[in-house]
């Protein structure tokens, strides 16, 4: 049987040499049905062109580092199977809406700052001493925020969000989902402290509910839901007279 092969095009960009990114084409063996897009990149790096740069680590869809655009859609390349594209070819480009650092590597410092700005930690008026044991929390209370705690910071949602693409001041889907994760945690009392950032003019209001963030999210976080719910809760909090209680 003739060996199956697949054509992979990948973005190349070296800021020292290139004025703008270009695509480079590789023809590689598609030797195993379990191969994912990341395996194709690894094959290229190991056997064809060692200078191709991209991020990856866990290859099990949990570390969030391998997000790239595959044939136009933001994907975790470790969880995107070649068999779903073959015999067609695949084009791998960096995540949209981010500055390209090198080849398939994008700059996500912006998110790191935004993440910090929403105070993603438990805020309490009065810390409970360790000796007092754990806060009691039921599984039902965890269900309130579970979904939003699944975010792996993979940035696919930012790459899919045109609002972020048009103006990167927008706080963006994952950061807001994580803010909501803490706001809904029965142990947290920091909703008010997070308000200035979340309800800021670059916060939830900028989202026009395109919803593509939730479509591409590999972990079922549904940031679109987090954002719309935050808008509603926040406006109710300020507009209805009984809304402003803790």
């Amino acid at each position, binding site marked *: 049987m003739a060996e199956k092969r697949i054509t992979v095009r990948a973005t190349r960009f070296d800021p020292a040499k290139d004025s703008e990114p270009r695509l480079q084409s590789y023809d590689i063996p598609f030797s195993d049905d379990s191969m994912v897009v990341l395996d194709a990149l690894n094959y290229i790096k190991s056997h064809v062109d060692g200078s191709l740069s991209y991020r990856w680590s866990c290859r099990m869809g949990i570390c969030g580092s391998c997000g790239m655009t595959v044939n136009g859609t933001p994907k975790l390349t470790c969880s995107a199977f070649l068999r779903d594209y073959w015999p067609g070819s695949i084009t791998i480009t960096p995540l949209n809406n981010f500055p390209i650092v090198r080849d398939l590597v994008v*700059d996500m*410092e912006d998110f790191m700052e935004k993440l910090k700005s929403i105070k993603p930690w438990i805020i309490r008026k009065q810390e409970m001493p360790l000796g007092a044991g754990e806060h009691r929390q039921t599984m039902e209370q965890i269900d309130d925020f579970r979904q939003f705690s699944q975010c792996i910071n993979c940035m696919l949602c930012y790459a899919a969000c045109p609002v972020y693409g048009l103006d990167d001041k927008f706080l963006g889907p994952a950061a807001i989902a994580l803010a909501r994760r803490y706001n809904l945690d029965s142990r947290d009392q920091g909703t008010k402290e997070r308000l200035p950032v979340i309800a800021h003019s670059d916060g939830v209001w900028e989202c026009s509910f395109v919803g593509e963030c939730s479509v591409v999210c590999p972990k079922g976080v549904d940031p*679109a839901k987090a954002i719309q*719910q935050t808008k509603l809760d926040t406006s109710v909090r300020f507009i209805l007279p009984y809304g402003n209680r803790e």
Partner: protein
Amino acid sequence: MSAETETSSRVATRTYKPAMPAGWWLRKGHYFWYMVREFTALPLALWLLWLLYEIQRAGRGPSGYYPPSSTPFVVFSVICLLFALYHSITFLRLAGVILHFKVMDKPVPSGLVVASQFGAWLVASIVIGAVLIGFGR
């Protein structure tokens, strides 16, 4: 460098940021339908302006009142209706994503929220339709 304000240090290097193309919303079906959803505002606004005009004309007395029946007007209404239905369906479905309540400590499933939204739409439509038609002659 002060550790108080910055908690991470990255050296800035030249990066390349492609601009968002003006036609981004043609790249994907989902984006396109989103734009259509946003666009519904325009025909709906026009139709409501017409309704306002219809009310205003009633103030001119019986002789100046001609209810519309031209084909272009009906065509205009049909187009508006398509957009209106698209608006209603998308808006009421999305309500299932947004609204979240609990009944006896159990969250109401979003399917149920959506169903009740559509139910309310149906009931309102029947009542309003009945009034509009019932008082006519």
